């Protein structure tokens, strides 16, 4: 065959590589990376693409990594990002330096005062996180969570607004069973000092992938809003987590409901289990008729008879 005129430029190859990496399902980017390298056959292009794609993937999937020193997990999210590879762990007031492509923590250091919120803010943040950890330990057995102050972290006392983000991330990877999944929840909490109200905006995103001799993926998401009174740190924490728990319970129940409906109703929209006659299709009858379009009419009339008789 003649030389391919449409040979891809490095730029194009990089774009394609980035697309594959960013769209990998939860927990599968390393497998996608391996296959991609085989197909791409160009390590330089791959490395450049990976350097850009991995941070995007890691942050959007809210991955959590083990911190060196046995401090537990740290979430990699845009809310805790101090610099390109540095992420704050508010729970332990430390900062991790991360290798995005290898998806590991390289080092950990204590956070500086400038990186942490003011004592006033920290009181609220800490109380909320403590309550959240209790909830998450029961609801998400293998997950991780954290509370970040995303606005107003230097506020000294009452009289100003500030904003927190609650991040919950749970992932289950069972590659040997060809099944992976993730649950991500992000709750934006606006503390409105002027009206003494907290406004919550929650977004839950659930994904699952089963691929034993096939490829089936679930992609579900839901947003909701709520509000509660602006109280002291402990009361606020209790109220907020109570709301989060309620909304997430409701969402779980509605997911169960969707699956339940699927078998009985929703799937029917695509294909019934059996025809309305509740019998298999009469293929053998067709041989008795001759080769004309009337075949279809005959069958339809015959079946209408059956329905009426039933």
């Amino acid at each position, binding site marked *: 065959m003649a030389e391919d005129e449409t040979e891809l430029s490095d730029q194009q190859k990089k774009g394609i590589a980035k697309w594959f990496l960013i769209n990998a399902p939860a927990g599968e980017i390393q497998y996608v990376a391996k296959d991609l390298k085989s197909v791409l056959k160009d390590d330089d292009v791959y490395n450049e693409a990976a350097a850009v794609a991995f941070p995007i993937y890691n942050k959007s999937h809210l991955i959590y990594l083990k911190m060196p020193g046995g401090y537990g997990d740290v979430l990699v999210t845009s809310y805790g990002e101090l610099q390109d590879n540095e992420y704050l762990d508010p729970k332990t007031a430390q900062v991790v330096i991360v290798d995005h492509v290898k998806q590991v923590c390289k080092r950990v250091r204590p956070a500086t005062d400038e990186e942490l919120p003011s004592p006033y803010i920290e009181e609220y943040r800490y109380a909320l996180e403590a309550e959240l950890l209790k909830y998450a330990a029961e609801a998400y057995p293998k997950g991780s969570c954290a509370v970040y102050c995303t606005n107003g972290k230097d506020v000294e006392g009452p009289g100003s607004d500030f904003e927190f983000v609650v991040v919950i991330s749970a992932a289950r990877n069972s590659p040997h069973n060809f099944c992976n999944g993730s649950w991500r929840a992000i709750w934006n909490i606006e503390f409105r000092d002027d009206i003494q109200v907290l406004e919550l905006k929650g977004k839950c995103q659930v994904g699952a992938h089963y691929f034993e001799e096939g490829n089936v993926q679930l992609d579900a998401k839901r947003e909701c809003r709520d509000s509660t009174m602006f109280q002291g740190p402990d009361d606020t924490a209790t109220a907020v987590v109570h709301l989060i728990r309620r909304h997430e319970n409701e969402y*779980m129940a509605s997911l169960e409901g969707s699956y339940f409906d699927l078998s009985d109703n929703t799937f029917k929209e*695509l294909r019934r289990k059996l025809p309305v006659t509740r019998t298999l299709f009469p*293929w053998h009858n067709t041989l008795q008729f001759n080769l004309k379009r009337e075949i279809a009419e005959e069958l339809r009339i015959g079946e209408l008879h059956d329905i009426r008789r039933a």
Partner: protein
Amino acid sequence: MEAAMGLMRRMPPRHSETTLSALLSLLPGHASDLLSQVDLPLQVLSDVDSGKKFILCEYNRDADSYRSPWSNKYHPPLDDAPYPSSKLRQMEIEANDIFTVYCEQYYEGGISSVYMWEDDNEGLVACFLVKKDGSKTGQGRRGYLEEGTWDAIHVIEVGPEEEITRYCLTSTVMLSLTTDDVSSGTFSLSGSIRRQMNMNLPVADGHLSNMGKMIEEMEAKLRNSLDQVYFGKTREMVCNLRPPNEVVQMRLPTS
């Protein structure tokens, strides 16, 4: 190639067209392998004579034209194109008629097409295709689905005619469905599976009857598998991520 197929299995099924075109541009030398092993959602054209829709696939294509099972014409018109023999064409017409009725029964609508041609081993190959749009703006009767498609491709290789003839069926089903409402948000499942089935059946029962029964059995298996196994596994995964409410309630201290 193995890596390419691995990528096909991992990328979201909704993006299968983008995935395939990315792979084709990265591996131009493997184009024919990729095109034969990867199935994409089916495309449709309208017959120039009757306006009836027919499904496009490799088996009714020659160059850039596609043969309609209704008028037997190539769209757009093509000189020197292959056609089934007149005997086979008769069987093809009958198959299309009967398969249309089968689809009405199971799919309550949808578009179907059957293509047949002689193969090199004195047998024949038949391809049965179905495309159903079950969304509420399409042919979904109950209005549950914001978006919903089912594409099925069944290719049967029929061995040379003997008293007991061999039938080899390879079936692929691709589906996607999305429900969307204010209280439960967006819920979307999509995927594809492919299976094979071989049977030795008496030719006296007739090719169409034999093939039809195999397809019906296969579709039931695939539908069931998707529903129970595949969707079921994703549901199991969700319950693993966040054990259902009753369990959580039991473990919570009074709060």
